[in-house]
């Protein structure tokens, strides 16, 4: 095969253009009539969860093509089960190869800090342009002074409930306290419509329910110093005692083995009256109004409302799952990856995805609270401002890798699950204390 020869004149012309590009930036690149190096057939691989709102993934799939054209790159979107994201990240980091960008949840940036690129230069301008990030999202992604991931969205956790069923047992408004919620649930369980809540090993709904539940009673994992384990307290023990009664009186006891999709299925099948969830149940009922019906034959979508968590003795608390995009330090396309995230998170490109989400995911920045979409469906309104107030795992300490470790090992969830299975409240709190001391110690 004959090699293509480059004569002296061609060499001088090409190398001159390259030198000019390196020296004078975009003007030079344009004058050289050559795109930047990363845009010349580069490939980018993004791995995200399988969205509970399929329309969101459809928009993203189209946007990969658009972004690819804009950036001159081939961008691949891979979607995997959310419970498999962490194993995949570990495997990729350990082998030093894999997707350039990972979808990160919660405060995982702390767990993978050393394997994530500093993306402050991407995140800061996005925050400034869009009314600023919500404070908990900043805390979840900014490790030290650097953003280790670009905040993308927040899946708000609200209780989806059947308004007709609650009205039947005398609750025209959703219960304000855990005691009221238990009373309503007890009556509804007797009618065959228990509250459905998971206490299993699953990434979203289980910690999303049990952490804020514990906080509302005054329980906490650690003190403010982030080191002193404080879970074995009078408040936590009280919360466990109440939880076991709540479970027995009001809940579907199968919830111990539920994953994040189980409550969606149960609700849409009409076997439960309420569950803490993102808005995916309602959105699915909207998508298929004639598929999901109540016992009376009415469309399920018309019987669904959303409400905030009931309050405990110390107030009302929430945990909302925040989602981010992190660029892996082993990636050979870091510059392109940053350009891509700037493109994807820009207002004009985020908006179509935000609209497809219909409120299931809200923006990580405050500007999206003002979007006209919120005027379309009052049922979704509780999600509009949900992200304003929530706190992260590891409360009352700062978010940390230790807090992520405790979350990944389901210590708080299992503390309640053990008590539900018969362990005394005191022993369950003591067990959790021992496990947390091993982590924080």
């Amino acid at each position, binding site marked *: 095969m004959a090699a293509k020869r480059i004569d002296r004149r061609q060499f001088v012309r090409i190398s001159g253009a390259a030198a000019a590009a390196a020296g004078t930036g975009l003007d030079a690149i344009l004058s050289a009539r050559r795109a930047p190096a990363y845009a010349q057939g580069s490939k980018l691989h993004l791995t995200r969860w399988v969205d509970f709102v399929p329309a969101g993934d459809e928009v993203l799939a189209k946007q990969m093509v658009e972004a690819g054209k804009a950036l001159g790159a081939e961008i691949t979107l891979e979607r995997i089960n959310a419970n498999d994201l962490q194993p995949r*990240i570990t495997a990729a980091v350990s082998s030093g190869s894999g997707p350039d960008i990972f979808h990160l949840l919660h405060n995982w940036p702390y767990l993978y*800090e050393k394997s994530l690129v500093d993306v402050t230069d991407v995140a800061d301008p996005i925050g400034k342009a869009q009314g600023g990030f919500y404070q908990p999202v900043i805390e979840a992604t900014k490790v030290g002074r650097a953003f280790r991931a670009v905040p993308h969205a927040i899946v708000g956790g609200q209780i989806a409930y059947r308004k007709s069923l609650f009205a039947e047992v005398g609750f025209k408004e959703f219960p304000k306290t855990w005691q009221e919620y238990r009373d309503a649930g007890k009556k509804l369980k007797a009618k065959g419509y228990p509250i459905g809540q998971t206490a299993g090993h699953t990434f979203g709904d289980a910690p999303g329910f049990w952490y804020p539940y514990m906080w509302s009673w005054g329980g906490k994992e650690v003190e403010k110093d982030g080191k002193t384990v404080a879970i074995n307290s009078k408040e936590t023990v009280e919360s466990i005692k109440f939880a076991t009664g709540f479970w027995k009186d009001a809940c579907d006891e199968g919830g111990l*083995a539920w994953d994040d999709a189980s409550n969606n299925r149960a609700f849409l099948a009409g076997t439960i009256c309420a569950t803490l969830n993102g808005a995916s149940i309602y959105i699915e009922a909207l998508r298929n109004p004639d598929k999901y019906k109540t016992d009376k034959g009415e469309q399920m979508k018309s019987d669904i409302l959303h409400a905030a968590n009931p309050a405990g003795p110390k107030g009302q608390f929430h945990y909302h799952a925040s989602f981010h995009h992190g660029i892996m330090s082993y990636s050979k396309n870091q510059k392109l990856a940053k350009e891509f995230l700037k493109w994807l998170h820009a207002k004009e490109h985020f908006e179509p995805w935000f609209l497809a989400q219909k409120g299931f995911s809200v923006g990580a920045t405050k500007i999206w609270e003002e979007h006209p979409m919120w005027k379309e469906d009052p049922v979704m309104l509780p999600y509009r401002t949900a992200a304003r107030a929530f706190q992260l795992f590891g409360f009352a300490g700062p978010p940390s890798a230790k807090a992520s470790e405790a979350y990944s090992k389901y210590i708080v969830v299992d503390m309640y699950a053990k008590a539900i299975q018969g362990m005394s409240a005191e022993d369950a709190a003591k067990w959790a204390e*021992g496990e947390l001391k*091993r982590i924080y110690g």
Partner: protein
Amino acid sequence: MAAREPRSIAGGAGGAAEAASRVTVAPRAAVRSPWLGQALENERILGFLLLSPTVVLLALFIAYPFVKGVWISLTNATVGNPGQFVGIQNFEKVFHDSIFQQATYNTFVYTALATVGKLALGMWLALLLNRHFRAKRLVRASMLLPFIIPTVLSTLAWKWMFDPTFSVLNWSLYHLGLIETRIGWLTDPTMALMSVIIVNIWRGMPFYAISLLAGLQTVSPELHEAAAIDGANGWQRFWRITWPLVLPVTMVVTLFSVIQTFADFQLVYALTGGGPANSTHLFATYAYQVGIVTGLLGEGAAVSLAMFPMLFVIVIIQLWYIRRVEGA
């Protein structure tokens, strides 16, 4: 080149005999160098050369990962952090970990009950299949289905059957009037462990059945006929003739099964993820949760390696017993 040079020398002024000897030596050297020929004549060297591909493969794919695993377990490595040597700190930590203790208990119960279940049902099935009946080949082939279907796929089917809300098993039992309330297949801690054991037995039984069937077919029918003439009933014939003769095969099959069951992962991972409240965690699933999900590679490697000495002792006892049985 090596062949040409001697010829050019031989064409010189030397004697004819000398030239001839040089010419005859030269072609040999072209095929094989003298040192290589001598080396291959040596049985030790030849043996080493023949073994070397296997040794290299074993070193690369078994020894290296094992040694690497041991090394990681002695460090505080986490995801993205190679870590530093911390001695046996990880082992001390996991041995004081209540979840690890529960996983240890679960693993032994899981292995013991599943192995006994698979052996008993596998033997029963093998005895049935050893008889002559219509469509015997079809039945034998279909019996292998649980073994052929990918474990994760079949486990997902079981997950649906055990589903807390929509369990087809509960539905059937309820409509047959056998139960009044739902059975918590995966919600009650004891039932959850039993459920994963049931699935393991279902999946592993064909392996036992086929292996034992092969053993049964080596038993001479004349022995049974002679025993029957002497008045031995079915149980006596099994216990006095069949069982002693298939015992060596049974022991080998059990050995393989124990190793596989003790280190089982995918079935439990797909069915329960170790829950509820860690009541179905085994060594492998807990090691995965700690090392791969949580990213504590050193601690996860320590959990994983903790099963090694226990499994080693079990295997040694079994091998010793197999030798005894075979020697008897």
